[in-house]
């Protein structure tokens, strides 16, 4: 059961992570800082999943990356683009609709 739950969670996470990253990058951030932000909110994300996702979003023009070399260690900062914001709003709409449908059926179940 735990294994099955884990694999479904992985599938659900795929879309959710894109939305989450597009939301959090309203403010510039780099990979490690993002992992910490999510961890502080009690949400674990695998580091080796985040970086490839950032790369894919950057390739699609939804986020923009820039290396910051002035500090002690070079870091790549990301920020959401205009196209990314549009995508985020679209995804948010889908997510809210799904949430409404689930809530509707859970409420129905409670009244039965």
């Amino acid at each position: 059961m735990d294994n099955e739950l884990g694999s479904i969670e992985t599938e659900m996470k795929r879309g959710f992570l894109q939305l989450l990253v597009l939301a959090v990058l309203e403010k510039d951030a780099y990979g490690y800082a993002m992992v910490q932000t999510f961890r502080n909110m009690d949400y674990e994300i695998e580091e080796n999943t985040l970086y490839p996702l950032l790369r894919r979003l950057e390739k699609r023009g939804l986020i923009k990356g820039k290396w910051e070399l002035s500090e002690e260690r070079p870091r790549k900062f990301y920020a959401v683009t205009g196209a990314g914001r549009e995508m985020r709003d679209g995804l948010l709409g889908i997510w809210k609709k799904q949430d409404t449908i689930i809530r509707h059926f859970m409420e129905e179940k409670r009244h039965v």
Partner: protein
Amino acid sequence: MYKNLETYLEEISHFLSGREEREEILSEIRSHILEKAEREGEPATETSLDKIIAAYGRPRQVADKYLDGQPIIAPAYQRFLFRYTWLLFSFHFVFIVIGAIFKKSFSIFPFLFIPGRDIADIFLYTPTAFLTDFGIVALVLYYITWTGKETKLPWPKFAIDLNEAKPVARIATMIGAGIMLALTVVAVRLFLKFQTIFLIGSNFEKLRPLLLPKPGQLISLAILFMMAAGTIVLFIKAFSASRRLAYWVDAIADAITLVMIGLALHQPFDFLFAIDLPPRSLAWMHTSLTVTMLIFALMVAFDLVKNLVRLGRRRLVK
């Protein structure tokens, strides 16, 4: 510079070869691991990095997540890889056997050359034939995947019934095996007495060989071999519930039968009979016997293909 970190990045780099953004990916991973080591503990050391590297994931697993390429063969066509390979190989195998029987080379398509080899050479050539067929099918499926078109691949439904054959009642198989055994024993006894099973005479006491000694002996042995193979197949089917084993023994018996038919067809017909026959009757008998044997060989070859495809499909299902 940390040796273990650089080794780890080198391994990831190996799996990302050919990607132009490889260096940037590695720089980002390096930066992440070093920052994590410093923030979560004391200044980075090779020992502290070991734990972080292990937690980050195995190099291939890490690299895989960056590689989201198209599969070589689309999932919708993957099952056809083994189906078509087995189908092609089955025909190929039948042609190899035919080539070996008649000791003649021929080509079916420009790329499918069948060398006329000895029976023993078949065992050496067959794996090469299988790999060739696998390669041809894989190449075609790769091309179809690459074009991106929604190609519906045909699969014979009526020509080769791949549904599992309904098992004949075991008791009927046993009776069949018993009859075959009795016939084989009678044939063997006749052969031991007359050195042939082709006899002519008005009664048992006056029986004499129909064929000349050498060809008569050879054709008789070929038929005895087929009868023995058929008997063994029926006994195996009667005492084993395994379908897979049944398909295997059927396929082997079919291959043996094909070889025996080939040997029989090789006999010079003009010097076959020990009795005098008018030339016209001889010619007519020659034609009708050859046609009958060839039809029989075709039926056996078809059964061989069916059994080999069934075996291939069962392997695929597993």
